[in-house]
């Protein structure tokens, strides 16, 4: 165990983590998760929002155990290595809306950065426009960072403050196993899809196990799919990018071995072919993630470490997912909606304003 942790905190950590996450993503599809969606932080958060009744899109409702697994795996890893450090106070409400709009952008494209790479590794060439948009969004974020962008300093919180998100993760798992049904129509308050992507699920214990391991590994190695491009472009530092490269290679190889690699644009699972809006949606996400300091996976990992600001961000993502479906903003296989385009533009204006207006004066 100790030697594994030594590898994870070494310079090989992100690559080892990326290789595991990529292989796990492809394997989870094999075990039942939706196509090219073995692990998608945004989609799974959206499924959880649906399961909790925050939206009523019947095809995307499931309490994905991977997500609470991330939080708990990260919490345990951080706690045992004394990196559990409750902190908050860096413009939390702004971070909430960065999370909100990051989710809107991700649901225009139909995937977070993790899934963008998973889609590419599965042969879905529509992902290329999304990854291009992601890079541009990160690039715009970098311009703001060079010009002194900051959401301000976080400070230490009381020791118990960081336990809230791990407890919330335990509560989600309890709801998954207990499946309470006392709603008016004999369903709910927790909803589970009977068809569609929300009904495509890997066995609970495999999904939870992968979530816990990924949470652990990513906490140790700081694996981050947005930091990967950011550091590569901004600092010529390939440390985190090695994680994304390893993710792509291992997801591709496992897909190939399992017969899941199906190259092309048409007929890809949970995807549409509007390249322009794939690009713009991910540009919004990339900018929001960069301003918030990390990709959605990383935000969940940090919320497990006790970072209250990252926790607010993921709650913003959860609420954003609810709005995305209630207001018909989310795309589907049929394409992008007019409402979704409007919301994306509003999100871009918000993120550009935040990037421009928020600066910190260093002494």
């Amino acid at each position, binding site marked *: 165990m100790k030697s594994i942790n030594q590898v994870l905190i070494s310079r090989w950590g992100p690559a080892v983590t990326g290789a595991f996450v990529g292989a796990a993503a492809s394997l989870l599809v094999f075990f039942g998760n939706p196509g090219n969606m073995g692990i998608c932080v945004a989609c799974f958060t959206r499924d959880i929002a649906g399961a909790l009744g925050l939206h009523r899109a019947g095809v995307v409702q499931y309490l994905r155990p991977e997500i609470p697994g991330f939080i708990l795996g990260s919490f345990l890893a951080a706690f045992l290595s004394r990196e559990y*450090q409750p902190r908050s106070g860096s413009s939390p409400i702004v971070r909430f809306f960065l999370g909100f709009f990051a989710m809107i952008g991700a649901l225009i494209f139909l995937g977070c950065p993790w899934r963008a790479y998973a889609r590419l590794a599965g042969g879905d060439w529509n992902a290329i426009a999304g990854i291009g948009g992601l890079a541009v969004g990160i690039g715009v974020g970098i311009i703001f960072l060079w010009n002194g962008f900051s959401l301000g*300093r*976080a400070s*230490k919180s009381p020791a118990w403050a960081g336990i809230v998100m791990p407890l919330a993760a335990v509560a989600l798992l309890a709801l998954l196993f207990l499946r309470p049904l006392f709603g008016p129509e004999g369903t709910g308050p927790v909803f589970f899809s009977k068809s569609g992507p929300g009904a495509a699920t890997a066995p609970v214990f495999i999904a939870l196990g992968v979530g816990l391991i990924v949470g652990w590994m990513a906490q140790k190695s700081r694996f981050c799919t947005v*930091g990967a491009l950011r550091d590569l472009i901004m*600092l010529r530092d390939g440390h985190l990018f090695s994680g994304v490269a390893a993710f792509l290679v291992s997801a591709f190889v496992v897909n190939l071995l399992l017969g899941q690699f199906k190259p092309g644009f048409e007929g890809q699972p949970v995807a549409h072919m509007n390249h322009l809006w794939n690009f713009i949606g991910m540009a919004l996400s990339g900018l929001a993630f960069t301003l918030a300091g990390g990709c959605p996976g990383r935000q969940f990992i940090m919320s497990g470490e006790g970072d209250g600001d990252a926790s607010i961000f993921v709650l913003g993502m959860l609420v954003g997912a609810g709005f995305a479906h209630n207001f018909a903003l989310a795309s589907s296989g049929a394409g992008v909606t007019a409402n979704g385009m409007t919301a994306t533009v509003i999100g871009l204006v918000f993120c550009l304003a935040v990037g421009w207006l928020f600066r910190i004066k260093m*002494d």
Partner: protein
Amino acid sequence: MSETFVVDARGLSCPQPVIETRKALEKHSGGPVEVLVDTVTSRENVARYGESHGWKVAREDTEDGFKVSFTR
């Protein structure tokens, strides 16, 4: 030996500690420079930047975090 330049990057989120470190190291290219951070992540990011740019880097625990010292 010139006076030590201190950067207080405590509480700043990723990647701002590295950006502030880079600015300080470029401005005070003879060193020494000290950077205060409050998470292990920031400590390692800042140290890695210095090490890959030819600085001698020392890490130290402080009361409320870490001090990373850069010398030539």
